[in-house]
């Protein structure tokens, strides 16, 4: 193993443990900055020592103990400056330390303790995704604190200057501290709203990665894997919440198809025309299993319906055997939960494929009656309409609709796809 490779491998191990270790440090010290700084130092030590000493059997416990020592050093140092408040904090931290056998027994003993280490990641997740923080801050904090991504990596992933991202994180940390956003799992009466905020943040991270093209930095694509990793943690920590499994399923079923989404010259390929041999079996399997786990829980939420839609596509033996009537039904159910334009347009497409283009076009017309001005500027509406008109044989109308769609299109893969369809019309 070359030095660079081993460092990369060690960084991957450290990053896998990052969120869990940080969450437990914040739980015992009650101070985000102290916990983050101490963990950074512990990671630096790990990357120095692990190549020589070997990776400890319980890396999380090793990092926790090392970071706790750093944090206690800092608190002692501060206490020497005779700040009473911090002296009290130190006293409390030391008392907790005595209770923590990992710290009492030192590094060697700590290695045995990993399994018993309390998992505080839910508290950290709910705090990072608190509704009092902006969406952008929630995403950045979650990736930084639970994903263990560096500030630089998060900035690159979102195509932002590092300084902008650093300022965003700093502002969020200050708000958590100044407004005293609590570090805890929310109570019953806030549960639904707070969980949906956490799920939305994870899905936002995924979609940011899913919308990335090959021309963009690889770290953007890696956001998909990062979101899936977070969703696995979440589903593991909240196994009775159907939507956690459903979100995991939804993302896996999408991500499994990533190699089949574009033609070699970079045009988007619609789902029912994709080369199924290029779908990733393992991810599809895990996604379908997650969907089953979701179905075993009470209630069927919006993520469960979207995952069921993705599964119906995937489970069809061939693209031209897609069960459109089932999809139309699922979209209709989804529309009752989230009556957004994108859901209604997709429902119209499914209805058109299930019961003939006229049925789909009728739904699109009804949609346009409701909010003509907004739909006029809505790309999926024109793209859906173009496709249904093409299937109905209305070549001239379809051509106009494709042109409307192309005028609104900003992504290169979709532009190429639409242009190809338009060209196909005149032949």
């Amino acid at each position, binding site marked *: 193993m070359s030095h660079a490779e081993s460092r990369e491998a060690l960084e991957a191990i450290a990053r896998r443990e990052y969120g869990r270790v940080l969450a437990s440090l914040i739980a015992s010290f009650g101070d985000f900055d102290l916990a983050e700084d101490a963990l950074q130092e512990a990671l630096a030590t790990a990357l120095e020592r692990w190549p020589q000493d070997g990776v400890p059997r319980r890396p999380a416990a090793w990092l926790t103990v090392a970071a706790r020592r750093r944090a206690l050093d800092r608190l002692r140092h501060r206490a020497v400056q005779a700040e009473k*408040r911090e002296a009290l904090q130190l006293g409390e931290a030391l008392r907790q330390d005595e209770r923590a056998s990992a710290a009492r027994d030192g590094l060697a003993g700590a290695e045995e303790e990993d399994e018993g280490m309390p998992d505080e990641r839910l508290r950290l997740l709910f705090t990072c995704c608190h509704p*009092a923080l902006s969406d952008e801050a929630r995403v950045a904090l979650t990736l930084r604190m639970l994903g263990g991504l560096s500030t630089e990596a998060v900035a690159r992933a979102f195509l932002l200057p590092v300084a902008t991202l650093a300022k965003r994180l700093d502002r969020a940390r*200050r708000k958590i*501290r*100044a*407004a*005293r*956003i*609590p570090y805890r799992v*929310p109570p019953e009466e*806030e549960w639904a709203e707070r969980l949906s905020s956490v799920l939305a943040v994870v899905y936002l991270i995924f979609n940011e990665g899913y919308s990335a093209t090959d021309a963009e930095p690889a770290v953007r694509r890696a956001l998909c894997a990062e979101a899936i990793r977070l969703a696995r943690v979440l589903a593991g920590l909240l196994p009775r919440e159907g939507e956690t499994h459903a979100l995991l399923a939804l993302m896996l079923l999408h991500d499994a198809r990533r190699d089949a989404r574009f033609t070699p010259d970079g045009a988007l390929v619609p789902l029912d025309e994709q080369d199924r041999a290029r779908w990733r079996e393992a991810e599809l399997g895990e996604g379908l299993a997650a969907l089953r786990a979701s179905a075993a829980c009470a209630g069927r939420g919006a993520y469960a319906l979207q995952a069921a839609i993705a599964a119906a596509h995937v489970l069809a033996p061939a693209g031209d055997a897609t069960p459109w009537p089932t999809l139309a039904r699922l979209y209709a159910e989804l529309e009752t939960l989230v009556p957004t334009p994108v859901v209604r347009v997709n429902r119209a497409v499914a209805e058109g494929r299930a019961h003939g283009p006229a049925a789909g076009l009728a739904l699109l017309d009804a949609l346009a009656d409701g909010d003509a001005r907004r739909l006029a500027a809505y790309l999926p509406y024109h793209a859906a309409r173009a496709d249904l008109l093409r299937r109905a044989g209305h070549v001239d109308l379809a051509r106009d609709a494709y042109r409307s769609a192309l005028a609104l299109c900003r992504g290169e893969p979709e532009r190429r796809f639409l242009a190809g369809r338009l060209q196909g019309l005149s032949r």
Partner: protein
Amino acid sequence: MQYALLFYNPPLSELPEPERETRVSTMLAAMREWHEELTRAGVFRSMLRLAPVESATSLRGQAGKVLVHDGPFAETKEILGGLALLECADLDEALRWARRCPLVQIGTVEVRPEWNAARA
């Protein structure tokens, strides 16, 4: 820790006719009820309803002098109509009370923690 709840809403005197008077008296009654709840829960510290914004006078330092002018800090449709001070354990508790404030139905309630040098 103390949290200030700042009430920004259109002046009650400008609520739409015809049912303005009933709406104002309903709102005031609801505020009294909210106040009682706050007191019973032991979080209430203080509350102030402000006189109409026409009565505001603003002072501003400029080039070493203090300029006085008639009117509020900013001319906006929703004005600072009053405030409450609550003693809460954390932001979530303050947000729970703010959510139940009747004025949230007709405007914005801004929640601001008190300054704390150790947390700033």
